[in-house]
């Protein structure tokens, strides 16, 4: 644990009865960084978030947030945190403005200051013209933005977002991303969980991939792609004849081949070159697509394609 880490955790475990939701993870997050936790449903992301937001206590292991121990200094730590939970948890009966004004009371911020910040934050969240509307009448994207505005009332040094864009349409997602960039630019440290790989590539300087309560990979998005995937992926689809006859013949051209029910994925350095070689073997794929490797390839390689529910 380095002393200048904003947050560091070592050997973090969370156990619920016989179920080990988090199974010994180590992370260290620096000030100003934007850090991602990726993983399939049930990987332990939310349990980890709840521990590093000083709400739930670890079963074992140690956390330091702002250099403080959350077990003994929970309220002090939470006063400097902002949390955007998976569900919006807004007071639906109250107006948009009142949601902010009332939440500010929890931080003991003087009323005048809350009002001023709330006005600015509604501006930031593009909700100024809805200030007096009942919260229940907002769209999903608006509620999400209001929840983010609410999490910023105490001007947190660290903002923790649990699946911030799940369920939003593309417009709403991009608007949210834009707001998060701004916060990052202003020096706020961000911790984000998501299972959208494009989101992680967009937002995170560094990330960990979690699976079954453990960290299975850690690094910058580009570095992870280089480490766990190839530069390009060649996707081949075969027609009625099926792909089986070609698998053996083709696989020698790729670093790794993944056989899916409807197509072959060839992990290669240069997709076009391999495609020419494939054609030279006499194989006639119905369609061929060359694309750059993405974080999604890394994710699927590390956590598998099987659904875990």
């Amino acid at each position, binding site marked *: 644990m380095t002393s200048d880490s904003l947050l560091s955790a070592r050997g973090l475990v969370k156990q619920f009865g016989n179920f080990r939701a988090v199974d010994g993870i180590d992370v260290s997050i620096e000030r100003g960084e934007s850090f991602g936790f990726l993983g399939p449903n049930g990987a332990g992301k939310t349990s980890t978030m709840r521990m590093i937001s000083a709400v739930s206590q670890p079963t074992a292991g140690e956390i330091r947030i702002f250099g403080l121990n959350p077990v003994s200094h929970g309220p002090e730590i939470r006063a400097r945190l902002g949390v955007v*939970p998976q569900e919006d948890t807004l007071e*639906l009966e109250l107006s948009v403005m009142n949601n902010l004004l009332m939440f500010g009371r929890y931080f003991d911020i003087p009323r005048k200051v809350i009002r001023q910040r709330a006005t600015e934050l509604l501006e930031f969240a593009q909700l100024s013209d809805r200030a007096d509307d009942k919260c229940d009448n907002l769209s999903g994207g608006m509620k999400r933005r209001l929840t983010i505005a609410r999490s910023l009332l105490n001007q947190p040094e660290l903002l923790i977002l649990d699946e911030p864009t799940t369920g939003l349409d593309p417009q709403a997602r991009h608007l949210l991303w834009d707001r998060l960039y701004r916060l990052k630019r202003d020096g706020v440290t961000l911790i984000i969980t998501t299972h959208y790989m494009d989101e992680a590539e967009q937002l995170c300087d560094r990330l960990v991939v979690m699976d079954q309560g453990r960290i299975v990979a850690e690094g910058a998005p580009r570095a992870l792609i280089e480490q766990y995937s190839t530069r390009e992926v060649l996707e081949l689809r075969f027609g009625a004849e099926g792909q089986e006859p070609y698998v053996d013949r083709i696989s020698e051209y790729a670093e790794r081949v993944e056989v899916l029910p409807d197509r072959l994925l060839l992990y290669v350095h240069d997709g076009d070159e391999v495609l020419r070689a494939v054609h030279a073997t006499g194989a006639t794929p119905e369609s061929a697509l060359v694309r750059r490797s993405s974080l999604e390839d890394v994710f699927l390689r590390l956590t598998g394609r099987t659904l875990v529910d």
Partner: protein
Amino acid sequence: MDRTIRRGRTRTWPRWHRSLWYHGAFYLQTWRASVISTFLFPLLYLASMGLGVGHLVSAHTGLVEGRSYLRFVAPGLLAITAMNLGESESMWPVLGAVKWVRTYHAAVATPLEPEDIVLGKLAWVGVRLFFTGVVLTITIAFFGALNSWWALTLPLLAVLIGLAFAAPLMAFASTRESDASFTSIYRFLIIPMFLFSATFYPMSQYPGYLRPVVQLMPLYHGVALARSAAFGHAEVGSMVLHLTVLGGMLFLGLRSAKKNLRRRLAS
């Protein structure tokens, strides 16, 4: 070290005020719906029972325990109103805050601890009970049904009675996943207590073997306290018993509400 940690956790008095203010401010935004049930219903009961039934009673049997029926029944209605306010504030609103809208989850992401939420919430219910008690005491006085300065303690008794129900029910509601059991609480606890806690007729109407059963009903102790205060006479022994029962419910309820809400929100 260990000691300072523990002290840091339990010394919550400055923080739970924030939860009290939050609940208070929330009420000020949404009070309209609750005013009718809090004040109008007891008033209607008082008019219908006290005047209507009271007229019938006086025509047939004259006085009840030496008083007009209106005087007899009025303090019981105050106790019932306190129970209803305590119970209604601590079932659906609490389940909603931990399960449906999850606003208590939002609150524990701030400096508040689960214990602060319990104290702030119950303190707010206490404030409402007090003011409801004041209004009802004035109303009952207006009907001419008070005859002791002890009646000035009625608002405080309303606080005790209401919280004696609110605290354990909050503890219960914080463990629930659905509101299915709340209906049973109404059917098998609240309504029987409302009807049979010597509220509408005196204990002497029950056969001897049923009296201990009535005494098991928490509301009975509230009714008895309110009646003593309104009439200004009491036996010390039974007062101590009534206060102990209600105080005990509040104490144990508060303790398990803190424990259960911590388990629900922070595990």
